[in-house]
């Protein structure tokens, strides 16, 4: 392998047979190149989809109470079920370890927000600090509600980008006072929602402040939780379903609600939605891998083909070499070393070009569905090695056969 004389011999052969060398090289390099680009865009599409739906790709559990519709344990239907702070506390205490974020909610549809001469109707929600993460609201200015705000029931408000545009005409609202149903709140933060403008119609105030402002006492309208998702999706699904079931049955028991009374207590979770996104992402990955592996197989087959043709074309040369004293092993080594060198070199060349293209073109792609196309370098490198190994194996058979040919047969005049 490190015999300099043999390398000289190989380089001479390669440079004297440029067309053959280039054809082999191009087929290997293009195979790897296509594979890398496909893989890169598959990652890109996955990233795009993930980012697009990232707000929904976790399991969000929401609990809402209403009026009972069924008679249960001697209690009449049409009874209003009222969730309280203690319901949230109970669930937090019981399932705290499994819940990632938790928040109560006390909201007021269509409250009027007034700033100087501007006013508008917004959906005002009193929430806990965790709500920021449940809703995946990203803070663009200032801060979100914190525990201090909750403890002291401060009159502060977090508005949305949409509010900023509509009410404050785009200037920073931090520190400004707005009136909500006649009560003054100080703006401490602005948030944006990856879900877009539709979800930006809400503004947030501390849960405790909302309960005071809207005479709610210790009542809450709803509760939201998120469940940490493990990497293994099936495991996460099973776990989440159990958790949702126990939370629901706890509340039904406590408030004496019939187990099948959907109107009195709704416990929804986004597991199904998350599952769809997970499987969409998996599907995209699978399709690209399928196409990619197909490309690689085509590459291997064509390398093998080229090897067979090369050996065929060189049968006479091999006969001459054998007559001049080449041992069979040296013939095999010569052909294989040559093919490994060419496939390896052009494979790495295709790899570099493919990665380079992703690096250059990747950031300029402006599509919601393709983001940061990239390839794991080791995956790419392993692919090159697989192609080289398979190409070598494909080349070994004809090389072995060539080495077995009797020189007298190879030299026979046609």
């Amino acid at each position: 392998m490190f015999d300099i004389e043999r390398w000289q011999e190989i380089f001479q052969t390669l440079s004297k047979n440029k067309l053959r060398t280039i054809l082999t090289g191009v087929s290997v390099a293009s195979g790897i190149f296509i594979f890398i680009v496909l893989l890169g865009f598959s990652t890109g599409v996955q990233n795009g989809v993930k980012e697009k739906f990232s707000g929904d790709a976790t399991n969000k559990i929401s609990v809402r109470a209403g009026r009972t519709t069924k008679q249960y344990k001697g209690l009449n239907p049409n009874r209003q079920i009222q969730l309280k702070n203690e319901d949230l506390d109970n669930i937090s205490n019981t399932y705290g370890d499994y819940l990632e974020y938790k928040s109560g909610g006390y909201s007021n549809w269509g409250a009027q927000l007034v700033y100087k001469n501007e006013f508008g109707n917004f959906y005002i929600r009193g929430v806990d600090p965790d709500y920021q993460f449940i809703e995946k609201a990203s803070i663009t200015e200032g801060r979100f509600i914190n525990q201090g705000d909750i403890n002291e029931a401060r009159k502060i408000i977090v508005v949305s980008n949409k509010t900023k545009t509509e009410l404050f005409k785009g200037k920073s609202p931090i520190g400004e006072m707005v009136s909500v149903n006649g009560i003054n709140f100080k703006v401490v933060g602005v948030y944006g929602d990856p879900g877009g403008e539709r979800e930006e119609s809400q503004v947030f105030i501390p849960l405790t402040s909302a309960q005071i402002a809207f005479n709610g006492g210790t009542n809450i309208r709803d509760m939201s939780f998120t469940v940490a998702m493990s990497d293994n999706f099936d495991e996460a699904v099973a776990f989440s379903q159990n958790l949702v079931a126990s939370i629901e049955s706890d509340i039904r028991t406590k408030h004496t609600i019939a187990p099948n009374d959907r109107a009195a207590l709704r416990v929804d979770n986004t597991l199904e939605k998350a599952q769809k996104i997970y499987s969409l992402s998996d599907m995209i990955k699978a399709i690209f891998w399928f196409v990619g592996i197909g490309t690689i197989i085509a590459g291997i087959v064509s390398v093998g083909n080229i090897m067979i043709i090369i050996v065929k074309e060189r049968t006479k040369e091999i006969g001459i070499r054998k007559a001049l004293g080449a041992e069979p092993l040296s013939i095999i080594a010569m052909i294989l070393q040559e093919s490994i060198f060419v496939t390896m070199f052009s494979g790495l060349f295709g790899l570099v070009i493919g990665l380079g293209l992703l690096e250059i073109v990747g950031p300029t792609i402006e599509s919601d569905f393709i983001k940061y196309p990239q390839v794991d370098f080791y995956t790419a490198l392993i692919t090159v090695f697989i192609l080289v190994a398979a190409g070598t194996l494909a080349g070994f058979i004809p090389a072995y056969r060539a080495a077995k040919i009797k020189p007298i047969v190879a030299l026979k005049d046609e």
Partner: protein
Amino acid sequence: MGSNSLHVLKGINFHVKEGELVSIMGSSGSGKSTLLNILGMLDEADEGQYILDGVPIKNLNEKIAAQYRNKFLGFIFQSFNLINYKSALDNVALPLYYQGLKRKERMEKAEHYLEKVGLAPWAHHLPSEMSGGQKQRVAIARALASDPKVLLADEPTGALDSKTSYEVMDLIQGINDEGKTILIVTHEDDIAHMTKRIVNLKDGVIIDDSKVEQIRAKQNV
């Protein structure tokens, strides 16, 4: 050779001394090529002995046959069998590569033998740029390069016109004059008479083996 094997040679007994120039004659199918292949270790006889320079040649595996060919034998073919993408010099140097010589040494030796066959100015030309006679002379230089004990020539003039044939035979005679043992397979009478001994084969047996008066090729050039 498959199930229907054919006994081509049916008892050949002959001896070549060092420095001889022998031609093997016979019509096609007489077994002359088979004989040469056995002598060239490209094929092996079913029975009998072959002793080359005191070394019994038998039970050869591919590897040892290759080493013997490289050390003991030089081949000259009817169709030259040069490697077409290598220059004349590189072709001549090839057997030296398989002897394990370093590049510099190979090139020096190869140049020496090219000069000997009068093709030094053509060293860097490809076979496709040369005439048939020149190609055969390159092949002869290649056969000589490894300094073999015996040169085996299979119809060396078969693809050449008579003028070029005589030039090549003149070269071969010159090499023989320096003491090299040479065997030539031919079916041309005039070529055979330029050797010192003619062995006539027919149906796998020697029907005639006699020394002849050598005709110098130079007279005909």
